[in-house]
């Protein structure tokens, strides 16, 4: 449906104008990932008149996607994301040329696909693909719009834009497995990817139309809890601009060194023993709200100074809210008394059934 009035609200915006619109219509954008971030990116770029959109994802729609991936409905469950998205986007704007890739991005297909586009949007949910997108875009000298989130927080930046910094200039090396929690473990508030994805769409529009100030050379940190945004000024590390080939694989290998943990079931069994030595390493305020009654509170920052008060002749169990601080506590205790029996309660207080918090 072609009509001069379709984009009048943005062509009449003086800072964008008809030339901004003409550039959007010439543009080709690849969106990698059609989940929480990719959905708002695709909807806005399509609505605003980007000429060609590539949609890439190999996932199918699941019921637990619907709280944040607002393009999909209950009737779409079980269907491939890219084909459902393509159908809905065609109904939204029939002028857009849409190409779908029902596949994930791999080192084998990345260069061939990315080279056909002007701009890439990283709307993925895993580190492996993020580093692959970065490296492929550096090899091909393409800019990409990065967006990622955890909990209430999001990060946005345009990387590899002209002489600007890349993702590796901020985070040189990929995390090892389990270093950083993912959405499956940590949960995700439905509206957060909507905000971060919409900010990515805004940056894509500025890059493509050559209008406005592109978020290059800076990393935006958004905190949805406090509604605070801050920008971190970045530096280019020249070696990161000189990638010429991709790595054979971007998969994150599983980690070898794990601290000893006990899971909730094991812990419930152990907790029947009244002599159990349980140390809660959360801060005093958290401990006051709810705690396992037999636990002793030693906040993590004070642990180093109070190790001598712990009896390492018997097993020591550390607990915190989620299991992260208690793992730190185990490492501190292992350094102090190598060979001692020290364990972290996996999942922490969050994982315990309610009665245990009052009945032990």
């Amino acid at each position, binding site marked *: 449906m072609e009509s001069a009035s379709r984009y009048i609200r943005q062509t009449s915006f003086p800072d964008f104008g008809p030339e901004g619109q003409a550039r959007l219509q010439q543009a080709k954008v690849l969106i990698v990932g059609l989940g929480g971030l990719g959905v708002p990116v695709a909807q806005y770029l399509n609505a605003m008149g980007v000429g060609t959109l590539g949609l890439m994802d190999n996932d199918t729609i699941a019921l637990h996607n619907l709280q944040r991936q607002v393009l999909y409905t209950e009737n779409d469950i079980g269907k491939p994301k890219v084909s459902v998205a393509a159908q809905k986007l065609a109904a939204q704007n029939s002028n857009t040329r849409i190409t779908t890739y029902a596949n994930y991005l791999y080192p084998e297909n990345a260069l061939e696909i990315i080279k056909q586009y002007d701009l890439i949007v990283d709307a993925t*949910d895993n580190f492996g693909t993020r580093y692959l997108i970065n490296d492929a875009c550096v090899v091909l000298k393409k800019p990409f719009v990065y967006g990622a989130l955890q909990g209430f927080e999001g990060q946005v930046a345009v990387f590899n834009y002209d002489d600007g910094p890349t993702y590796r200039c901020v*985070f040189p090396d990929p995390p090892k497995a389990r270093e950083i929690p993912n959405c499956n473990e940590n949960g995700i508030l439905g509206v957060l990817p909507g905000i971060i994805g919409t900010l990515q769409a805004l940056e894509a529009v500025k890059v493509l139309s050559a209008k406005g100030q592109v978020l290059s050379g800076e990393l935006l940190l958004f905190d949805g809890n406090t509604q605070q945004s801050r920008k971190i000024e970045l530096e280019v590390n020249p070696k990161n601009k000189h990638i010429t080939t991709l790595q054979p694989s971007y998969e994150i290998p599983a980690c070898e060194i794990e601290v000893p943990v006990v899971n909730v079931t094991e812990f419930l069994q152990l907790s029947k023993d009244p002599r159990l030595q349980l140390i809660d390493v959360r801060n005093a305020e958290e401990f006051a709200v709810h705690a396992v009654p037999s636990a002793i509170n030693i906040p*993590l920052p004070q642990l180093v100074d109070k190790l001598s008060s712990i009896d390492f002749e018997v097993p020591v169990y550390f607990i915190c809210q989620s299991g992260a601080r208690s793992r730190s506590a185990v490492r501190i205790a292992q350094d102090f008394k190598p060979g001692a029996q020290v364990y972290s309660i996996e999942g922490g207080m969050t994982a315990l059934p309610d009665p245990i918090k009052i009945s032990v």
Partner: protein
Amino acid sequence: MTVLLFGVAKDIVGSPSLSIPTTTNGKRIPRTVGELRTFLGKSYPELEQLSSLAIAVNNAYAQDTKEINSYDEIALIPPVSGG
């Protein structure tokens, strides 16, 4: 000096910010970004083990050699992957 914590750094420490004492009580005060990493790593080994942890001083990305002072605002920024 104030250290703001983001992402998993906030989870590891269990608080959105930390205050680093700037007077001596026997411990060595961190004078560079690199020394701050080591200093924090003693209390929070998981922070030191992160493969990449960006540190900003007064909202600018800082190398480990960057000197820091008591009035600086430091931010620990780990990568996040959700989408």
